[in-house]
């Protein structure tokens, strides 16, 4: 599948998880695309960890304000009703459980809900930024990612990379399927119409429990 289409599928499906009135933090990259698919008439407030709630879209050309940026250092806008604050307040919102949903990418995620997305020792050391706090504090943690990386499974029995947080992931959304992390293990809830259970299994490095109510992915 074309990766652009795959990412749209993921973003559209994640958007269906959002509920009216929620405060949501979207990670940089694919997770940011989720904001394009919030259903009409639904009020979702986006949080940006550098210090705002009520984040809007990118400004029109020529309308950029150097005092209004997002967590990826891009110019952004604030919607009516939004608010700015300092980093202590920003992480009170995050760590204190006031953020309803956080959507992040992953290098690896495992069947215990462990997430690794901040370091590949010796190769890539960007730092954790706000990811550890987001995953620890948000009420619901959604991993939004391509199902495999360079053909290798990213959903594993046990993460090999250093963890971002232990046992915090609730839902995994990929271009192939939707997986819920439960005490019993990973439950396959939905699969894309163009794939099969066997194909999903072949790209997954962990045991999957097939839901009795397995559905076609709702996108």
């Amino acid at each position, binding site marked *: 599948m074309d990766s652009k289409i795959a990412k749209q599928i993921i973003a559209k499906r994640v958007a269906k998880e959002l509920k009216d009135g929620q405060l949501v933090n979207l990670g940089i990259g694919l997770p940011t695309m989720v904001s394009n698919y919030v259903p009409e008439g639904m009020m979702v407030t986006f949080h940006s960890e*550098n210090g705002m709630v009520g984040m809007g879209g990118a400004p029109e050309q020529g309308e950029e304000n150097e005092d209004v940026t997002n967590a990826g250092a891009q110019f952004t806008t604030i919607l009516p009703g939004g608010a*700015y604050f300092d980093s202590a307040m920003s992480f009170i919102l995050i760590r204190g459980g006031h953020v309803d949903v956080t959507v992040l990418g992953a290098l690896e995620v495992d069947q215990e809900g462990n997430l690794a997305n901040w370091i590949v020792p010796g190769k890539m*050391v960007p730092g954790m930024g706000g990811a550890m*706090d987001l995953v*620890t504090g948000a009420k619901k943690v959604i991993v939004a990612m391509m199902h495999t990386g360079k053909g290798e499974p990213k959903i594993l029995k046990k993460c090999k990379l*250093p963890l971002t947080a*232990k*046992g915090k992931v609730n839902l995994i959304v990929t271009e192939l399927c939707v997986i819920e992390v439960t005490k019993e293990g990973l439950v396959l809830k939905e699969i894309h119409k163009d794939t099969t259970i066997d194909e999903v299994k072949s790209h997954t490095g962990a045991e999957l429990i097939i839901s009795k109510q397995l559905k076609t992915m709702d996108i």
Partner: protein
Amino acid sequence: MNKVVSPDQLKPLFKDGMTLMVGGFLGCGTPHKIIDILIELNIKNLTIIANDTSFADKGLGRLVVNGQVKKVITSHIGTNSETGRLMNEGKLEVQLVPQGTLIERIRSGGAGLGGVLTPTGVGTIVEEGKQKLTIEGKEYLLELPLRADIAIIKGSISDEFGNTFYRGTTKNYNPIIATAADVVIVEAEQLVKIGELDADHVMTPGVFIDYILGGIE
């Protein structure tokens, strides 16, 4: 008492080996004119405490590129490839701290607290070497306070007493680091007379500020 100074009057304050806190989030809300002064002075062996190491050509990232930094305590270095390169060559010590933990360590440093207990990092390599406490059945890490010799902050509007207002997302670390250093310098985008900044709009009370580099729009 006159807190308003020129760049030349600030220069004697900065010395080799100092610990500096620098405001800003990827360069937004960073006191760029004070960074210029540090580059010009070329003081070395600095320990920098800041959210990130910005970009190679922006903000405090320039201090890293210029070889002036010995150690950084930060949450993110991914946007400045020079930080990673110097770290891998053993020329720069990098202590990575979760962003919410970093800001609370600074806040506790400024607030006279002995540290903070946070669940962030439990079960990860961040917990290595740290005291773990169980409070009402939940595990927390004890994270210790941070302070600096000098904090350099960027204000959108300051009055001549140092009362400061920050616009938009320039707040980030600025109001917090202003509480946690022996000397605090604000670079004011707009400098106004005492009384011209409404007391209700003050985000950092002037009592925290020692020096003001002002009117640099």
